[in-house]
């Protein structure tokens, strides 16, 4: 019983030490927890240095950790290379007739795509109708990525110190004080054009090359240009973290709901009640237009979010 309690206690302390180590460690606490099974060499060599300099011990532990880290990195790299090489060897020969890339799916896409999806742009028909679930995953990955970056880089109460606060305050003052005339004049001309062009690319996604991802990137670059030229303060007047969260999650939910509807009706052989329209018209091809708009919004917000978080640490 007592042994167990002791081991538990020990475990806890080593866990705590590990926590401090993960959080960066301090001068008082050792950077690395003492390892239970030490190699004999290190044991023999250590005591002298340990007494001489306590800092030395930390350094020794860290260097050993780096040693293991490097060996592990090389091992993992070799294993990954081996797995990929084996996978490449298993691939079918280039151009052989029974490859998976030459099966009936491609024919179906080319021959019946226009009729079934109503999209003149075949790529849009493919990624937003036949493979819409895949695209949903892509936009969710973007959203997840920006969420993780927010967790890591967002400046809030727990992630700032006084110096940084002073620095940001000074930056704000500079931003409010000094505007580059040339940049702002040109930005006034370029930003509306870029936004309109981005909207055009998104709305025309099912008719011409383009679509949610490219159009969203253009709109995002317009937002970034606005933030660069007019400063974060004016940007945050109409686009802050709350709006970002609302807009992005709403777009993703609309995407998920509309696609779930079409999956449900398709799987149960029901009529979907969504008119496909005349191919070539702007209001056609059923859900593709809506999905394109959702993807465009998510991508634009993500682009701007990455910029803002990586430069200023705020949104």
């Amino acid at each position: 019983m007592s042994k167990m309690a002791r081991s538990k206690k020990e475990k806890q302390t080593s866990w705590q030490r590990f926590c401090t180590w993960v959080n960066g460690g301090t001068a008082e606490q050792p950077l690395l927890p003492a390892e239970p099974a030490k190699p004999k060499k290190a044991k023999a060599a250590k005591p002298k240095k340990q007494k001489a300099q306590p800092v030395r011990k930390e350094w020794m532990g860290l260097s050993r950790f780096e040693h293991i880290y490097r060996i592990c990195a090389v091992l993992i790299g070799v294993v990954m290379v081996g797995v990929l090489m084996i996978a490449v060897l298993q691939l079918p020969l280039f151009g052989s007739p029974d490859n998976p890339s030459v099966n009936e799916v491609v024919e179906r896409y080319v021959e019946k795509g226009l009729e079934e999806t109503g999209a003149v742009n075949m790529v849009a028909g493919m990624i937003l109708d036949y493979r819409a679930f895949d695209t949903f995953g892509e936009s969710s990955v973007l959203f997840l990525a920006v969420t993780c970056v927010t967790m890591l880089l967002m400046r809030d109460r727990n992630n700032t110190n006084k110096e940084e606060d002073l620095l940001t305050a000074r930056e704000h003052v500079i931003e409010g004080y000094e505007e580059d005339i040339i940049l702002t004049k040109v930005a006034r001309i370029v930003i509306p054009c870029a936004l309109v062009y981005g909207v055009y690319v998104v709305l025309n996604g099912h008719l011409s090359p383009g679509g949610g991802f490219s159009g969203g990137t253009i709109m995002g670059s317009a937002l970034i240009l606005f933030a660069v030229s007019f400063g974060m303060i004016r940007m945050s007047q109409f686009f802050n973290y709350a709006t970002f969260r609302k807009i992005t999650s709403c777009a993703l939910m609309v995407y998920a709901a509309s696609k779930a509807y079409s999956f449900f009706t398709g799987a149960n052989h029901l009529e979907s009640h969504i008119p496909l329209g005349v191919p070539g018209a702007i209001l056609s091809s059923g859900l593709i237009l809506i999905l394109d708009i959702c993807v465009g919004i998510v991508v634009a917000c993500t682009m701007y979010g990455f910029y803002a978080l990586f430069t200023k640490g705020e949104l």
Partner: protein
Amino acid sequence: MENVKIIAGIALIVLGLFVYVTATFGLFRFQYVLNRMHAAALGDTLGILFVLLGLMVLVGFGFHMLRLGLIICFLWLASPVASHLLAKAEFVTFKHIKSECEVVEK
């Protein structure tokens, strides 16, 4: 008439490429940042103007000509501003700028 058009277009594109070659030489031969930027900006504006004018002559009247004109407009707006900002950053951050060029005090 068709031949003249093609020859004129090709001549303009070759002129633009010549400007680009000059700009690239300048970019690699100059030592100081602002000199190199000056050379690079030459290609970004004059070179692109000649190449796109040549393409406009080649495609003839129509929607494509308008598009190329819009590209010229955009590049002439965007590229000089980018150069200006780079030069400003160099001016603000480089301590010994007076040893490299004349500085007009405000």
